[in-house]
């Protein structure tokens, strides 16, 4: 595949999505040039905007990996949102109810969140591995189960704080993420970076990662080569779910300080286009997550300074996906043409 096509597609996709979204801006008589310059240029040239983008990227990177890993193995995890809630609930509960110094409490809460997210994703993983139950449906449906249970908990048993709002008590300082010295970004950002590096190393440099990739590209061949597809299926969901669980707790411990009803603006769903954009490597997942974080932050600024409804963010996201999958088609078509010309060089990336 020509190089310009590999790097050109994401750029084209984003530009096209922004161009079409401009129609929505014009419809509310907002100057799209001024709006986009506020959204991107102003955010990126302002230290506060940069910090916000980094903070927003944390749950997006982690849930992005939660979708990316199963996708490597050929499975769809469309339920990262539910795994995120599972992690947020368990992490917050540990933070509120266990009395330990920070050095012990934070790792415990993060671990608890990872286990919760991993187990929640492990249900569809197990069902897929054991009985071949469609993972798209189970991950999706379990998301709504998780969010409703979280809602129930913050309305009832875990409800705290003044008044009768569906929120928990504030986390004690020992259970909140400290800032990275000098950066004013919470340490969850380092966790997210570490997760990207770990994923990269495991997928690219280990036998296990190789198995995941082979199972993803050809499960039959993998089985014939003696690899256990069910072990891989279960594993990618457990690890992916653990990432999403950490995403949930890091959003509470790093940003919101208490669990509240519907605290996530759909990070786990945005993770799907992120994994799709970053399908070819963990580093690209990071890039895609940073881009969507920028859209989230820029969209919020737009709402403040231009009065544009924040729902524009959803429209831009949807259009990015729309143009991305359209471009995929033409890319496949272009590759087909090329392969026909030079049959010996056939074989692109997975």
């Amino acid at each position, binding site marked *: 595949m020509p190089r310009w096509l590999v790097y050109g597609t994401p750029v084209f996709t984003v530009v096209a999505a922004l161009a079409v979204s401009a129609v929505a801006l014009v419809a509310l008589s907002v100057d799209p040039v001024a709006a986009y310059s506020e959204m991107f240029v102003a955010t990126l040239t302002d230290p506060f905007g940069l910090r916000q983008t980094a903070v927003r990227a944390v749950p997006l990177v982690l849930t992005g990996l939660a979708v990316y890993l199963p996708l490597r193995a050929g499975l769809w995890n469309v339920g990262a949102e539910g795994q995120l809630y599972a992690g947020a609930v368990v992490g917050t509960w540990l933070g509120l109810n266990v009395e330990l110094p920070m050095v012990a409490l934070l790792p415990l809460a993060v671990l608890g969140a990872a286990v919760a997210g991993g187990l929640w994703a492990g249900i569809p993983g197990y069902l897929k591995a054991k009985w071949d139950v469609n993972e798209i449906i189970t991950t999706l449906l379990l998301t709504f*189960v998780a969010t409703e249970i979280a809602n129930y908990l913050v309305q009832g048993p875990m409800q705290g704080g003044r008044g009768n709002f569906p929120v928990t008590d504030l986390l004690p300082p020992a259970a909140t993420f400290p800032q990275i010295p000098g950066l004013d970004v919470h340490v969850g950002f380092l966790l997210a970076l570490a997760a990207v590096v770990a994923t990269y190393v495991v997928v690219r440099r280990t036998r296990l990662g190789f198995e995941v990739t082979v199972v993803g590209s050809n499960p039959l061949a993998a089985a014939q080569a003696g690899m256990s597809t069910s072990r891989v299926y279960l594993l990618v969901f457990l690890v992916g779910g653990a990432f999403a669980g950490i995403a949930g707790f890091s959003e509470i411990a790093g940003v919101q300080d208490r669990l509240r009803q519907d605290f996530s603006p759909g990070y786990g769903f945005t993770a799907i286009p992120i994994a799709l954009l970053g399908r070819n490597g963990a580093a690209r997942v990071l890039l895609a997550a940073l881009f969507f974080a920028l859209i989230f932050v820029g969209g919020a600024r737009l709402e403040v300074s231009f009065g544009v409804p924040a729902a524009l963010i959803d429209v831009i996201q949807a259009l990015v996906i729309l143009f991305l999958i*359209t471009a995929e088609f033409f890319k496949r078509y272009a590759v087909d043409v090329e392969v026909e010309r030079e049959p010996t060089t056939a074989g692109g990336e997975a």
Partner: protein
Amino acid sequence: MVGFLAGLLDAAVRASTVFIFAALGEIISERGGVLNLGVEGMMLVGALGGFATTVVTGSYWLGFAVGALLGVAFALIHAVLCITLKSSQVISGIMLTLLGTGLTTYFGQSWVDESIDGFPQMTLPIVGDYLVEIPVIGEALFRSTAPDFIALALVPLVWWFLFRTNLGLEVTAVGEDPETADTMGVDVFKTRYLCVLLGGAFAGMAGAHLSLAFSQLWVPGMVAGRGWIAVALVIFAQWRPERALVGAYLFGLLDALQLRSQGIDLSLGAEAPLASVVNPVLDILLHPTIMATYPYIATIAVLVFTVVRLDGGRYGAPAALLDPYSRETD
């Protein structure tokens, strides 16, 4: 108690109509081999489009039609992406839900304060005036709005279409084995387009019913997950319209119970054995938020149960669901 039951039944029947429309559409689409996860988004555009049209023109029938058309327009995007461009049905569907949510929230803000006279209450034509007199169920089943009756009428119609017409059998054929269907002279692409567009029309009607008949108002996000429940319902109903009707009533009943759960008291007396264990559990199980999870849990249970019982065999899902069809022979 009779009053409570009649009220509950009435609310359940009303709540079920949305599920009937949306699930029937999803059944047609999936039987043709195309999963539609965009129902939620299509319902939202149908709800806003129908509402706005009714506010402007004063005609709720026109609003209902516009709602259906907007559903078709959204479904057309899905059809082009999934059938012609062979994109992932999962991604396309989730994209459409995101797009529908985004667009209707973005443009829907100014319609929130408008009010309409939605579909009026009526009795079932011809026999309804007598049947409403039946105790408990009469009012619930036979006094409703026109779209409620349309939804009910669509259940046997869709059944007849799918199982008794040539076109319906072709739909099943392209959903089960598109290669063979193609060999037999069925136009796979055209048939799948028809299924997806019909599914979109039904989803649009579901949304329009919600804003024009059920709630008679517009609020962003008012579909509130009903589209996802419809997707679940189709699996629950094993892709059969008549079972979808039963499922819609069950899920509608749950919907109605959530609003009235305070009225239900199943707890044991204080001196009954195990009361201290059973009562708190009952409190949790009957909590409206927990009850909202039941449709999803029931669907997963049905899915797992059928798969396990058939030991990995077919569980009623169209065999070619999620597979794009291409004619190239490589």
